């Protein structure tokens, strides 16, 4: 594994759902697949925290479940420490499942109502055959500030507040000393006061344990406390990738702009313009090959019928939008992911020549 090989790398990852019901097969009708995740390329390096932001239905949950190994990718590849997961053996998967842990959004559903806190934390240890359970459980509960642990260890989920339940979820994710944490909007269901404490807890844990984090959310106002870099996702595709502070101050892709401009500001003196975007995102089904935001985009052009490439806009932000390059003449602005993939690793040449619109 080369030295700066990312812990987790997604390379043109695709996940399609073929809702073929018995009737369609009977009548021989070919149904269009739902392209929930369509050619997503993201690198997650050691002790780095990447955010994936998008509205509901943009595919971030499908992406997360693929990362969790619950869904089989339909296309593209997912690399863990340089190894392609499609060729993983059972033991390699078990190793993956130990090092990649998940924190969920809904504190009320992420803990088994029939398990006490002790049972919840003990199960992962039993599954991976680690010993001295009580000691590990005690330490991890202290680490998530559920002090004194004895007071919480034998409680059932219904005897815990929302914030406390979320801390137990974080403890469960930490107890196997993982490399990567997948966080599915961990604070969006909590009240503002508890939200701040969980965000601080997560960022402290990142430092202390050198964790990498994959953080998905629909709420851009909290990401700055957790993520170093943001990928804005729309209908299964990443439309912009740039450092958090940069995207908040100077979003490039029209959709990122719309998302950020629409966030209400807690300041009565600041006069924010309302969004100009109309309508709602459609289902990611047979949208053709062009830019998927074209039907709602205020800066729409005819060229948008063609699939935009990923281009480096200003050395920091990368966006897939025709505003930032002339599609026809300028072929040099090849898809940046293709460049990096081709350049970064010589081996998979066939990935490189899938350039241009499909």
């Amino acid at each position, binding site marked *: 594994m080369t030295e700066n090989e990312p812990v987790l790398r997604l390379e043109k990852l695709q996940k399609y759902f073929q809702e073929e019901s018995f009737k369609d097969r009977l009548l021989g009708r070919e149904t269009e697949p739902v392209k929930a995740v369509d050619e997503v390329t993201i690198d997650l390096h050691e002790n780095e925290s990447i955010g994936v932001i998008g509205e509901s239905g943009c595919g971030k949950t499908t992406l997360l479940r693929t990362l969790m190994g619950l869904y089989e990718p339909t296309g593209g590849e997912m690399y863990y420490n340089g190894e392609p997961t499609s060729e993983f053996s059972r033991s390699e998967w078990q190793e993956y499942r130990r090092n990649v842990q998940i924190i969920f959004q809904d504190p009320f559903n992420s803990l088994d109502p029939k398990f006490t806190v002790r049972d919840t934390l003990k199960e992962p240890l039993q599954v991976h055959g680690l010993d001295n359970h009580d000691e590990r459980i005690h330490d991890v509960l202290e680490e998530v500030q559920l002090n004194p642990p004895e007071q919480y260890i034998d409680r059932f989920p219904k005897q815990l507040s929302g914030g406390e339940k979320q801390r137990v979820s974080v403890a469960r994710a930490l107890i196997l000393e993982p490399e990567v944490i997948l966080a599915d909007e961990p604070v969006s269901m909590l009240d503002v006061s508890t939200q701040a404490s969980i*965000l601080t807890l997560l960022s402290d844990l990142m430092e202390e344990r050198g964790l990498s984090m994959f953080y998905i959310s629909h709420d851009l*106002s909290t990401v700055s406390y957790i993520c170093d870099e943001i990928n804005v996702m729309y209908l299964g595709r990443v439309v912009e990738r740039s450092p958090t502070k940069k995207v908040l101050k100077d979003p490039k892709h029209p959709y990122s702009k719309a998302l950020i401009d629409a966030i209400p500001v*807690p300041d009565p003196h*600041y006069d924010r313009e309302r969004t100009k975007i109309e309508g709602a995102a459609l289902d990611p089904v047979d949208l053709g090959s062009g830019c998927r935001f074209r039907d709602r985009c205020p800066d729409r052009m005819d060229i948008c019928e063609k699939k935009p490439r990923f281009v480096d806009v200003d050395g920091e932000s990368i966006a897939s939008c025709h505003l930032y390059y002339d599609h026809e003449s300028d072929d040099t602005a090849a898809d940046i992911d293709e460049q990096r993939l081709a350049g970064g690793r010589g081996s998979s040449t066939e990935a490189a020549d899938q350039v241009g619109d499909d």
Partner: protein
Amino acid sequence: MSESEPILELEDVTIQYRTEGGMLTAVSDASFTIGQGEYFGLVGESGCGKSTIAKTLIGALDDNGIIESGKIRYKGEEIQDYTEADFNEELRWKEISMIPQGSMNNLDPIEKISDQAIEIAQVHTDMTKSEALERFEELFDVVGIQKSRIDDYPHQFSGGMEQRAIIALALFLNPSLIIADEPTTALDVIMQDQVFKYLDEIREEGEASMVLITHDISLVFESCDDIAIMHSGQVAETGEIETIYDNPRHPYSFMLQGAFPDHRYPDRDLEIIEGHPPENMGEVNRCTFVDRCPYAVEECSEAAPELEQHEGSDVEHRVACFRSEDAHEEHYQNKEMPESGTAEVEGDD
């Protein structure tokens, strides 16, 4: 009814729920006033009693709920003892209408939206079917939905669209007061902004006043004139939004605003408020924020603080805290005053 008379006044209202464990007090001694055409924000964390107040104002308190004490005056009329029938004949939808929680199923899924509108119109007015449809089409236009879609079924609408149809229905019989209870909680941020764009347009017309109930303080700061911050059943502070933002006096107010992320200042540390709002049984004679408040003293747990006008400000600004002066000093010793909104953010085109 003179111009100055407020449209809604709450005076020391206490609302309780009968539960196995005794009388759960959801709201205790809440008081605030809403003037003509005014947009009033009611903000607080979950469980602070704001939804209870919303339901009480339209007479739809749950079966086990009772208005234990206090006065509610709507256009000078006391309505705290109104029965279901009184609400139906005099207030519902003609005077007070409501935009319920943002979840998807306020409309009957197996009936056309237009039929449901006609049913409401025919119950309260003597509009003919065509008049009602015409009025409803006009309102669909106001909230940005094609007129042809009034005959659709609710499941054919997206989240944002159904919520805007609900707003159209709320405006249907020209009410004087609209209660919006977390109208956009279940919606994405762009859809939420679309909904508030139409709410602003309605505000320009200035006839109806509105009570906006939400946990998101930024919505109130952007769309309302006045605000009341509630904590676990008690009104902590009320006043105009600029006053409360520039000069918060109740510890919960300045800590809450400190805890609210603002994407324009990503590096600002978020304020952490320990613990969670307590549930109060029976008589509440203490400040419900006492266990979470770093500035609490003995006195705070012996009696419920009264909502008094804060001397410092010449505008209507009332606080319910025994130590609001020193708490304010202690809090802002080490922090500079919150940056006012006028400071432009560089690079903002």
